[in-house]
């Protein structure tokens, strides 16, 4: 618990109760200066409450929040140097762009000339130098987004909080804004804390992501760590797509072994969770679609298989989506397995063909079974 100036934001055992309901349960994390940190979780997981506590709109029930090493408990929201971009942006419709950006500076008693320079400066930096005199309703969705960020950044905050600000945009614009946000963060070199339920937003933009579920952090890590080495079944299921089987461990050496699924299939795995998997334990196994190879049954017999897990089935349907195309295979026990394939338009799989699914035990992530996930 040493205070380190390397962290812009530290949360120590933060919790929040609403009556008997525990919205946030003893969450701890710290965010290195100048990084892009996302909190990813399903709606109702407590991420908004957590952010409102950081901004000062809610008082935590327990724990401490430190900004640049100094506790901000008891500091009202208007004195915290944490600025926030709201879900629906909350730009002030009765003011024009200039007045919106100048608002915070005015509140701080900055002189007129200085305000003018800073506002134009920040407009330059977000590449909208000519919109100062526009009314808010004259801006496009993406421009509003940038103005909302500029309105906060002009105050040089220690931390910028963003509460799902892309949610209201259409898909194309959202994709573009993801990249833009990342660039803006680099440019301002300020710590961004980004709240979202959209995993692709979190994975694309963030240096680090925290996965939140039912008021707790399940795992904090880089996007790649979370994707390839999830610590819990929830993270494995929530981040990215995966095929999932439940089963019982038949043989285990602690870090790997064999499982028999509820459908009676046998497959081998490597343990992914922190805890060792014992024989006889109930487990969940996750396999990502891109690690499953689909081979025509006839070719499979000829080639033999290089993966240590195989499963035979019949092609049920093809889901064409360009580079992200998938095949749905119905296995002998009746379940559907998703697997990535490349559809070339020439000699592709067809529904009804017999196929073999092959994957390596290294790609089979196994977790002790939890009742409520």
């Amino acid at each position: 618990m040493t205070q380190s100036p390397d962290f812009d934001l530290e949360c120590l055992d933060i919790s929040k109760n609403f009556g008997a309901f525990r919205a946030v349960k003893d969450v701890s994390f710290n965010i290195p200066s100048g990084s892009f940190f996302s909190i990813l979780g399903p709606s109702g997981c407590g991420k908004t409450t957590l952010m409102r506590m950081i901004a000062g709109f809610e008082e935590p029930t327990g724990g401490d929040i430190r900004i640049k090493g100094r506790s901000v408990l008891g500091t009202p929201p208007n004195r915290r140097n944490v600025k926030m971009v709201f879900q629906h942006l909350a730009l002030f419709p009765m003011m024009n762009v200039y007045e919106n950006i100048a608002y915070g500076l005015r509140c701080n008693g900055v002189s007129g000339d200085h305000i003018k320079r800073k506002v134009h400066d920040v407009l330059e930096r977000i590449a909208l130098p000519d919109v100062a005199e526009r009314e808010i309703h004259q801006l496009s969705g993406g421009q509003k987004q940038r103005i909302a960020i500029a309105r906060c950044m002009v105050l040089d905050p220690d931390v910028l909080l963003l509460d799902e600000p892309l949610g209201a945009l259409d898909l194309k614009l959202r994709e573009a804004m993801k990249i833009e946000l990342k660039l803006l963060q680099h440019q301002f070199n300020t710590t961004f804390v980004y709240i979202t339920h959209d995993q692709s937003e979190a994975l694309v933009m963030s240096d680090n992501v925290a996965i939140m579920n039912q008021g707790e952090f399940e795992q904090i890590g880089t996007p790649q760590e979370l994707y390839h080495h999830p610590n819990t079944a929830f993270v494995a299921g929530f981040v990215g797509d995966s095929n999932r089987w439940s089963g019982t461990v038949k043989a285990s050496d602690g870090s790997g072994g064999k499982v028999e699924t509820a459908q009676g299939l046998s497959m081998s795995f490597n343990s992914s969770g922190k805890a060792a998997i014992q024989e006889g334990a109930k487990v969940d196994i996750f396999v990502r679609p891109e690690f499953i190879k689909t081979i025509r049954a006839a070719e499979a017999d000829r080639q033999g298989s290089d993966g240590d897990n195989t499963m035979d089935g019949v092609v049920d349907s093809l889901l064409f989506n360009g580079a992200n195309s998938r095949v749905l295979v119905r296995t002998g026990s009746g379940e559907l397995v998703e697997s990535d394939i490349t559809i070339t338009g020439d000699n592709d799989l067809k529904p009804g063909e017999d196929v073999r699914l092959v994957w390596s035990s290294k790609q089979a992530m196994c977790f002790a079974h939890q009742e409520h996930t």
Partner: protein
Amino acid sequence: MLAKNKTTPFLFGYRLYVLAFFLFLAAPLISAGAFAFNDSLFPALPWQGFTLDWFFGDTEPKLGMFHDRRLLQGLYYSFVIAIFVSILSVFVGTTNAFLFIRGEFPGKNFFYILMVIPLVIPGVILGISILVLASDTANYVEKNLDLELEFLRPGILLVVLGQFSFIATITSLVITARLKKFDATMEEAAFNLGATRARVLRTITLPFLRPAMIAAGIVAFLVSFENFNTTLFLVGSEAPLTITMYDRMAKVGSTPVLNAVSFFLMVGSGLLALLSIAVQRDKQA
């Protein structure tokens, strides 16, 4: 829509009905206004030619409204009363809006109904009940403390209070409706940007409410200006315009100068009503 499924004659008849209705709406107003320009001593046909004497004439029998001392005085009192009523009603309407939208307290629904009730109490009853209370209080004070509380006797104050008693409901409903549409995160955003509570109220919330407050004020002004039933019982020697006009009608009978006043009021109210619509229209529209 109904129209698509009906034959054209039906729609034609329907349109005709709508047209007839608007003629019905306009007829008395036109007749009240038009005779102001008739060069005759009586507001009746036949048309004797155009004149502005009923506005600007300065000699009997065609004494125009702008030279009629009693009417001008009535206009002045109406104006004073309406100004006070609007200010009071908008103030209370605004606090009520905050009370019912932001406040959390037991029995909120009950209090909300209490707020609406003055609108459905007949104006005559509001007038007499306030008259009774004020007079009883004044009598009591006079008898027991030997103090003459002149302001509790019929007069401007009682008229203002009487009109305010139900106009406050109207302004409350108008301003509440606007505050309901307010996005509360806007206040949080302002807070977050470093504003104090008072500053948030001054720079964010009140500017958002301003169109509704102005519109409510105009409505209050107009309703006060035209009120008769409540005013009738509370009026003292300073009679507002509607009372003066009524007296004139009862004592002298209808004269074209009343048409002139009517025309003047219609134009004035119409302009104010247009103004209130203009301010309520959002910038986006």
